[in-house]
Structure formats: C-alpha cells, structure tokens
C-alpha cells in the first residue's frame, strides 16, 4: 500500500513503501528550518552577535579582575612628611592626587563618593617612625562602598601597589637584623677574648693582684659596658613583631557610608537586573502578541490614541514590577540590608527604572516580527547590560571603551539612581539629574516606538 509522503521527489513513477522514518522527511524539515533562518535576517544576525558581544565584554571584565585595564585614580592625605618615597613608587600604577589641609580626609571622602578617586588613603604622621622602630604601620583607605565589587577590588589593588615598598621595608629590616647579629657575635668574641686574657693574667699573678688591680678593673668595666650594648641590640631584635616582618604596612578600610553594608547596595543592582531582564522579555513579546491578535489594528481602527496604548502597558508593568520590587527588598533584609530612603524619591526612582525598561522592551517588540526575534533581541541587549552593570565585573578597572558603553547603557544609571534613593537617602531634588537622564531616554525610545506602531506595524 502506498500512502502520502512515501514517494520521494525525483524518483519518477517508482512507488516506494510507506516509511515513517524515511530520511527525506528529516531532510525536508531541516531544509525548512535553514531556509526560514536565512529569510528571517534578524535571527542569524542576533544569534551571531550575541556571543560576539558577550565575548568582548566578558574578556574585558575578566582581565580587569586580575589586572586593572584603566588608570586607578587615587587621592592621598599624608600627615607624615617622610612619605615622598612611597608616593613616588606608586606613581607608575596609580594617578595620585595629593590632598592637603585640615579637612583633607573630608575632601578625600567627598572625592571618593563623587567618583573622582577610586581609592583614597590616609598616611598617619608616625608612619615612617613606626616602620623604623620595627613596628607595623597602618594606612586607612576609603573606597566607594556603594559599588561593592569595585570597593573590594580597590583594596586588593592598593595593597598590590604597596607591595614593592613593603618588600623594601622587610628587606632593609632583614639586613639590619643580620648586621646586628654579626656585630654582636664579633663583639662577644672580642669580649670573651678580653675576659679570658684577664682570667689568665689573674691566674699567673695571684700575688701581685694589688699592683695590677687598676688595669684589671678597667678591662672588666669596658667588658661590662660592651655587654650592655649587646643587650640593647638584642632588645631591638626582641622588640620586632611578627606582624611587622610579615606585613610591615597594614591596610584598614575606612567607612565611607555610615550604617550601610554591601547587601544594601546590592539590592539596587539585583532589582535593576531582574527588572531589565523580565521587562524586556515580557514587554517585547506582549507587543508581538498584540500584533498577532490584531489588537494593534483594532487600536488604530477604533481611533484610540497610540500613547494611550503605551501608557496602559507602562501602568501594567509598573504594578507588576512593584510586586517584584518589594519582594526583592524583603528578601534582602535577612542579608543585613539597611534601607534609608524618602518614600517619594524611592517611588520616583522605581517608576523611572520601570518606565525606562518598559520603553526598551516596547521598542524591541515593535522592531521584531516574531517572539523568537524579540526574545533573542532582548537577550542580546540584557546579557551585555548585565555584565556591564558593575555587579559582576569592576567597571572602574575596565578599558575605556567598555567603560564608555557601561556609562551609556541605562542600566548603569538605573542602579546608581536606586542606590541613591534606597540606601543613601537622597531626596527627589538630589536624584533629579538621573531621573531627567532616564526620562529623556524613555521619551526618545517611546517616540521611536510611537512612529513604528503608527506607520509600520
């Protein structure tokens, strides 16, 4: 019996037995997949560009972890006049700015918070004196704790920068110790010789002791003095601490922001990343759904203003995101997150972040012709955004072009905005610059989206 699909093309009249596993079935299906892939130009472009973009960002990020790819700006307050050697030694790896004045530490903190200096450190007045005495000296450093990853990497790079100096200190101490030991042994030997000679003289001139006493007394007195000198040297050796030998310079991290920890700042990164991922995917595919169900056509047919449609989407995703926002906030509390906010500023920041992400998603949806393309498009944007957010790689140590892109993408501004509003307690007026920036981005994206829906969809 011959059934449909059993006769392969090109075999003329010859009838073949029905074979559900015939290789032509598979070939036909594969042929269709590849043909459609080629016809839908956006799919192969996105499939290829996603790994390419990720590779560039990932390699720049992973290199930055082991070796800074950018100049590290450092602010220094030195209360010790004898530290020029240290600072000169650091010049090669860091761009140093020496701060002076009574309010030096305050200037340093402000500079760190403003991002003028990635690291700020304070050299105390007794820094070199302590080192000279064989005591461990301490340097206090300040980093922008609102960026936990960069902050921890900064401490590491600062210690690395001091390695040469510390090794020099340890090396010179080692030489000093050796020289003390050598001198002490030489002096001890000569003292032993003197004492032996004195003893021999005493033995051979037992009867004449009265006459020789002044000479013997002088010898003994000199020897006692020399022994006291050895004791001083040995006391120095005794006084050297293990800490000094292993780590002559100790780095203490100063507090840049009071009463907050990294979990507080991580909340901002986590929410913004979750928001961009979910909103890009949800919004873009919802536009495709609306196109497929002819909802957009109905909107136009009923004379509904297209911005009304956009606003309805934004309100819907604001409500959805609000649930996510409070859930993440709640989950961060057991991690020790401390929040400090004015309610108005927090809500304004949340709304602006959601509106921006929804606008990006709407535009992706308008530009995509299918769910597949919309999902790929969303991932091609959100994955590099994720790597450039600063939550996975320290942005400050990345090459200039990566830093530029990181600054341009909205996610960076979104995270900064939420940190300001949720942890630093900034009010509406203070967060206004970032609100305006994101507002402008959203307006542009919504404008383009409007034009596409009106004239193309």
């Amino acid at each position, binding site marked *: 019996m011959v059934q449909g699909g059993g006769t392969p093309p090109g075999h003329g009249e010859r009838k073949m037995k029905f074979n559900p596993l015939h290789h032509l079935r598979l070939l036909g299906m594969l042929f269709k997949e590849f043909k459609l892939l080629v016809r839908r130009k956006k799919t192969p472009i996105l499939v290829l560009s996603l790994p390419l973009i990720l590779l560039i960002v990932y390699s720049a990020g992973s290199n930055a972890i082991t070796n800074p790819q950018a100049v590290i700006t450092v602010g220094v307050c030195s209360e010790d006049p004898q530290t020029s050697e240290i600072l000169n030694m650091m010049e090669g790896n860091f761009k140093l700015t020496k701060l002076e004045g009574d309010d030096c530490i305050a200037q340093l903190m402000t500079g760190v918070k403003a991002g003028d200096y990635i690291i700020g450190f304070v050299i105390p007045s007794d820094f070199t004196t302590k080192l000279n005495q064989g005591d461990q000296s301490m340097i206090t450093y300040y980093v922008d704790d609102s960026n936990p990853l960069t902050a921890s990497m900064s401490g590491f790079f600062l210690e690395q920068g001091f390695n040469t100096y510390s090794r020099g200190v340890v090396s010179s101490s080692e030489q000093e110790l050796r020289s003390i030991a050598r001198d002490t042994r030489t002096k001890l030997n000569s003292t032993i010789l003197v004492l032996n000679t004195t003893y021999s003289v005493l033995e051979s001139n037992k009867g004449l002791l009265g006459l020789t006493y002044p000479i013997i007394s002088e010898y003994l007195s000199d020897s006692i003095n020399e022994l006291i000198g050895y004791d001083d040297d040995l006391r120095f050796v005794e006084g050297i601490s293990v800490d000094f030998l292993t780590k002559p310079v100790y780095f203490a991290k100063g507090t840049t922001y009071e009463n907050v920890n990294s979990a507080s700042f991580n909340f901002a990164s986590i929410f913004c990343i979750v928001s961009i991922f979910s909103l890009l995917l949800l919004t873009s595919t919802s536009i495709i759904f609306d196109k497929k*169900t*002819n*909802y957009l*056509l*109905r*909107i*136009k*047919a*009923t004379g*509904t203003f297209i911005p009304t449609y956009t606003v309805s989407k934004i309100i819907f995703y604001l409500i959805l995101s609000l649930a996510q926002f409070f859930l993440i906030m709640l989950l961060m509390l057991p991690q020790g997150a401390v929040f400090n906010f004015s309610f108005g500023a927090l809500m304004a920041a949340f709304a602006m972040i959601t509106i921006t992400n929804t606008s990006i998603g709407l535009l992706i949806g308008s530009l995509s012709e299918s769910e597949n393309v919309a999902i790929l498009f969303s991932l091609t944007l959100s994955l590099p955004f994720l790597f450039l957010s600063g939550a996975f790689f320290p942005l400050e140590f990345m090459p200039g072009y990566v830093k530029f892109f990181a600054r341009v993408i909205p996610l960076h501004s979104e995270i900064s905005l939420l940190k300001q509003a949720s942890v630093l307690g900034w009010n509406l007026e203070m967060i206004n610059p970032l609100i305006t920036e994101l507002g402008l981005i959203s307006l542009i994206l919504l404008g383009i989206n409007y034009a596409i829906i009106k*004239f193309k969809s």
Partner: protein
Amino acid sequence: MLDKLFKKKPKNYSIKVTGLNVSYGKKKVLNNIHFTINKKDVFGIIGLSGSGKSTLLKSLMGFINYKGLIDKTQDSIGYCPQEEAFFNELSLKENILLYGNMNSTSPNIALSRAQKLMNELMIKESLDKLAGELSGGQQKRLNIILSILHDPNTIILDEPFAGLDYMNRLLLWNFIKHLKRKGKTIVLTTHLLNEAQKNCNNLLIISKGKKFALGSISDLKRSLKFKQYMSIKFNYLSKENKDKIKTYCRRRNYWVLSTNERTISFGIPDVNARRKLLSMIKRLDVKYSVTEFRPPTLNELFMVSVK
C-alpha cells in the same frame, strides 16, 4: 439670511476619495483612484488578490500614508479586519467589554448591543464562553460584532466572507442588508462577484492598483465598451484562423474574453458588431455555432478588468 449663507450644505456622501495614490517604497500600489461612497450604500470593492483592495481600505482608515484626499463625513466608522481581532483566552463578555471600552462605549450599552447583534448573527452561546471555543463561522461573526459595538454609521468590512460556507455567507449578507435598512453605509471587499452583484448598490473594480470601473451594476455594464457577450463554438479551428479572428477583434476594439480549443468568447458593442464578426468568421470557411449572445455578467466585466 446669514444663516443660509454660512450654513454648510450637508454632504450626501459618506466617503469621497480624490486622487488617491499609495506607494510601498518604489512600488505604486494605488494609482490615482477617485470614487464616492454614498450614505446608506452597500459599496463593494472587487479585485484580484494583490490588486490593492486591502491597501485601499487601510488608506480609508488612515492606517497607512497616502497622497490624495479622503473626505469622511461620518465620524463614526467601524472597521472589521479580515483576520480575527480578539483574544481567544478572554470570554465573549470580556472581549465585548474590552472593545466596547476602546470605542468609548459604556459596559452596559456595549453588552446590550452585543447581545442584540449576537441574536441577529445567530451566535447563541453564553457570554462566559471563551472566544477561542467558538466555531470558525461564529468567530468571523464575533469579529464583526466587536467592530460595530459603538453603532457606527459607516462600516468597513475587509473580506468578511473569506472562508465562510454558503449558510454563513447568506446569514452575513442578510445582516448587511439589515444594517443598510438601519441607514448604515457598508463598504466591503470581496471576491464573490455574483453575490456582490446581487447585494451591492455600487461596485468599484480595481485592477493592478488602478480604478477599472465604478458604479452600479447597470452603470458598469453601460460604461463598458462591450454591451454584449457572445460565445461561439467551432467544429475545428486552426491556430492560423484563431489568430486571424484575434487580429480582426483587436483592430475593431472587440474583446476576446476567453479562448480554448473550440470556443471563443467575445465582448462586443452591439448587434451590428455581431453581424460583422460572424460574416468575417464565415469567410474563414469554418463550421461554427453561436452558443450564447446576451448582456455580460459581472464575472465577465471582472475578467476584462484583470486582462
């Protein structure tokens, strides 16, 4: 006196199109189209696939950019797209409320209108049923209902009969007649020439983006250069003779509507032309018989339009 001077004369048309041109990139899809749709008309737009019918409707709705003038005197227009435009996962009631809202119709009015329309279009299903659970014909009718919830004066239907069986088409034509009786203007596109001929007051035939003919059936027939349709059956017709007949017709502007092995159909202006054509065929010394001689149908007009 002043009242009379400033009082605008009411327009008796629903839509007036003047010099309509639409291009997709470099391709001209509609070329200098003019027509007027009178109030309370059932206006049919006919053309082959790709002739520009849907583009014309999209222009009327303002969905696409066009050059020319489209004057719509009635604000309230209901547009029903060819594909189903509702949500399968929503119930009938939810869809009705959604599209009622989108047309600024209050929920109660939208629901009562929908119930009435559902009765007229024989959808006897619960409002709580999901739209996706309706049959294909019911979905097509629901699509129309959702487009006219706001009780528009002009209703534009894009291929409303596509994919419908005879019973469903009959139901829909009756509904369109009912709407016309209620004073509505209906604009529709269709491929069903015979049904359009029967039910439309005015027809616009477009071919390759251009207006081919416009008017009532009788107007169309009058406006055409051929007023009579003649079909001749030959016992045998050589290729040479066939070519001679075609050349003769071309010289005299007679239409050769169709040819096959033994039959040729002609579109000719009058009885005199019939006499001349038959005497020419006689000279060819071939045996033949006239099988049909009558006024042309819409199908024949349409065939001419697409040639």
